[in-house]
């Protein structure tokens, strides 16, 4: 289902019961402990859930950008340190692999029978997570700078390159382009996006065998290198914070960044009205004649620990749904591309919605995709620096992945 269908859906949805007037949320007793990433949308959710705290209900939240590194250990304990973990496509996999999260079907039937199918992350027939927001990388463009060279918003990466060439020739900006290419996870993600945009598959069908060392992989790397010709030479250190700062300082004309940064980029802080007023959020472009945008769709959702009592699980589910009730969503409308009722898609959501509507694929939820992502992030930097060939870089990725996958038991 796409975001536009979602907004119609939420528009029609009937608000049932979740009025928020009951400070106790109707929870008799229990422990609610949330582990999540740390950004404004999740802070709003946790604050909403914290309203459920009472003499018999404790609500705590650990919000940290390092949540992925502690979630497995924290939920392995019995009873688990946290009753809920907020995860995304990729970070739910280790929890699933270890069986640390419980199916939510019973809780949904009891406490949120009207939850749309859209929000249910169903794995092998069981709902394992409730997705509440979406994210994707897409293009941010400066309409005024593009107009200077007579260009309109690009729909393909080939057009992007063409515009960047014109911008450089016109001398408007020194380094008109940026994407999140910091060596490591970010660089790996850019490869995955561009590779899926070329129509590639990361793995041989139905197995953990890598399938990236091919023509599509080379085309992907060549496109990444061609784009970063137009980036600041520091590009291998660019994470989301760096690219956002560059955009807000007005040094970029076209950037490929996370949709979740849209709200912060379009607000009136750290930038000037000339820059924010001319910033458009548009879909991720297609590449190499492909039909689908070169991007992956991500969801954020909550899971509930397996190693806790049913009472705590019920309390946690209710508190989190309370933290995601329409009033909270409406009050924090621009903090994220919400998948919950109460959300009115605004300007910051335009890019993600356009990317999703154009049919971008979700980031794969495979048990071994994390190993591939790590190998890509570690092994592609030398190619991006121009120190090795695309063929060699892909062979390195393949070898690094195979070594890791053997060690983890995915390959023999």
């Amino acid at each position, binding site marked *: 289902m796409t975001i536009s269908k979602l907004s119609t859906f939420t528009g029609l949805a009937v608000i049932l019961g979740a009025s928020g007037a009951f400070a106790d949320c109707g929870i008799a007793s229990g422990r609610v402990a949330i582990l999540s990433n740390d950004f404004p949308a999740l802070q709003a959710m946790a604050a909403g859930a914290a309203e459920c705290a009472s003499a018999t209900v404790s609500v705590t939240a650990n919000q940290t950008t390092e949540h992925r590194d502690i979630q497995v250990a924290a939920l392995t304990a019995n009873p688990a340190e946290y009753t809920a973990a907020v995860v995304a*496509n990729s970070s739910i996999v280790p929890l699933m*692999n270890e069986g640390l999260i419980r199916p939510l079907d019973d809780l949904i039937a009891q406490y949120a029978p009207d939850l749309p199918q859209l929000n249910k992350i*169903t794995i092998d*027939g069981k709902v394992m997570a409730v997705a509440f927001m979406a994210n994707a990388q897409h293009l941010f463009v400066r309409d005024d700078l593009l107009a200077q060279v007579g260009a309109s918003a690009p729909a393909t990466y080939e057009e992007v390159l063409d515009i960047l060439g014109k911008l450089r020739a016109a001398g408007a900006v020194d380094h008109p382009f940026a994407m999140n290419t910091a060596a490591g996870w970010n660089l790996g993600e850019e490869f995955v996006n561009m590779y899926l945009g070329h129509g590639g598959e990361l793995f041989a069908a139905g197995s*953990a065998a890598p399938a990236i060392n091919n023509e599509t992989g080379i085309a992907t790397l060549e496109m990444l290198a061609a784009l970063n010709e137009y980036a600041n030479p520091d590009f291998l250190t660019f994470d989301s914070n760096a690219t956002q700062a560059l955009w807000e300082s007005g040094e970029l004309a076209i950037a490929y960044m996370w949709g979740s940064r849209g709200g912060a980029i379009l607000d009136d802080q750290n930038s000037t009205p000339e820059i924010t007023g001319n910033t458009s959020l548009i879909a991720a472009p297609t590449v190499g004649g492909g039909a689908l945008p070169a991007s992956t769709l991500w969801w954020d959702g909550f899971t509930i620990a397996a190693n806790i009592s049913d009472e705590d699980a019920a309390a946690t589910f209710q508190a989190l749904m309370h933290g995601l009730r329409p009033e909270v969503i409406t009050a924090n409308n621009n903090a994220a591309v919400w998948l919950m009722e109460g959300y009115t898609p605004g300007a910051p959501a335009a890019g993600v919605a356009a990317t999703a509507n154009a049919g971008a694929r979700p980031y794969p939820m495979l048990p071994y995709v994390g190993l591939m992502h790590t190998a890509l992030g570690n092994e592609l930097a030398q190619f991006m620096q121009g120190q090795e060939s695309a063929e060699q870089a892909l062979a390195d990725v393949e070898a690094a992945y195979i070594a890791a996958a053997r060690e983890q038991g995915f390959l023999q």
Partner: protein
Amino acid sequence: MPHRTFLWFILPSLTAMILFIALPIVSVVVQSLFVEHEQVLVTVENCGPFGCTEETRIDREATAALREAQPLGRFNGLGTYFNRSHLATAELSAAWQESETIGAFLGQVMNLPFYKALVFTLSFTFIVTPLVLVLGLAIALGVNGLPRLLRGPTIFFSLLPMIVTPLIGSLVLFWMIDAQGVIGATLQRVFDDPNLSLKASPVLTWVTLFVYGVWHSAPFAFIVFYAGLQTVPAETLEAAMIDGATRWQRIRYVVIPHLMPLAVFITLMQLMDNFRVFEPIVGFQAQASATSLSYLIYSHLRGDVQQFGSAAATSVLTIIGVAILLTPVLIRTWRDFNRKRV
């Protein structure tokens, strides 16, 4: 001291050492010999906000049964040590046979993660350590020559780089050397090259990390040498002066021999510290150009999948590396000790 008393005397520290140093090392060694169980995969249908897809998933019951039978995982012997992420013996011999020249072979070797990290770690250790010694001694001699009133404030400011947390210190410098930072922009202007970037070129990144390493560690050498300078015997110095020794000769023949044991101590500490260089790589986001052994361990353990076997093997190799590095210094100390006893 009778043996019995001695035993009781060291028992608390011995217990702590066994519990917190020896046992963890044993556990790491054991862990490095095992790899994860074969994962039993099944294909299931996953559905989410963006539609349904057929994806593979780990069959948890089957995997749990395997794990129950062998909790440590599959025994892999030294397999992990020799795979591509570590010593990469197969890749090395293939590279040796394929490469025409030594240069091509070395290029292939530097393409392997372990050797790439090892080369940077060793370069860092052997470039930073001597510079720290020399710079520390120079600062100590300089401060010692200052009027008493100025010494206190000077010592305080000289110590600042060591007081700053390594990660914070490197982050501060990271932003200063940014193309828009005060150092980065000045360098671009001085060399008249708008594309000059300390973060982009591997060579300049290495140089930046070395400079940071010296900046961070020199105060340690300085304060140790400065303390040592206070104990240089005044009579010997006066005698040297009467013999007509210049300032340089007094330093070379009186002060430096007197400070030698301290130099050995600082070398020992610096070799160990620099061999486990880590924070500046994170702080400078330098992993594209420079990785160290400690960084490899960190990267094995981070992210969605933790590779405990790989991390353990790299840890054991690091311990072996430290042992090899320290052996010459320890042998020297042991000889000195024996000579003094006689």
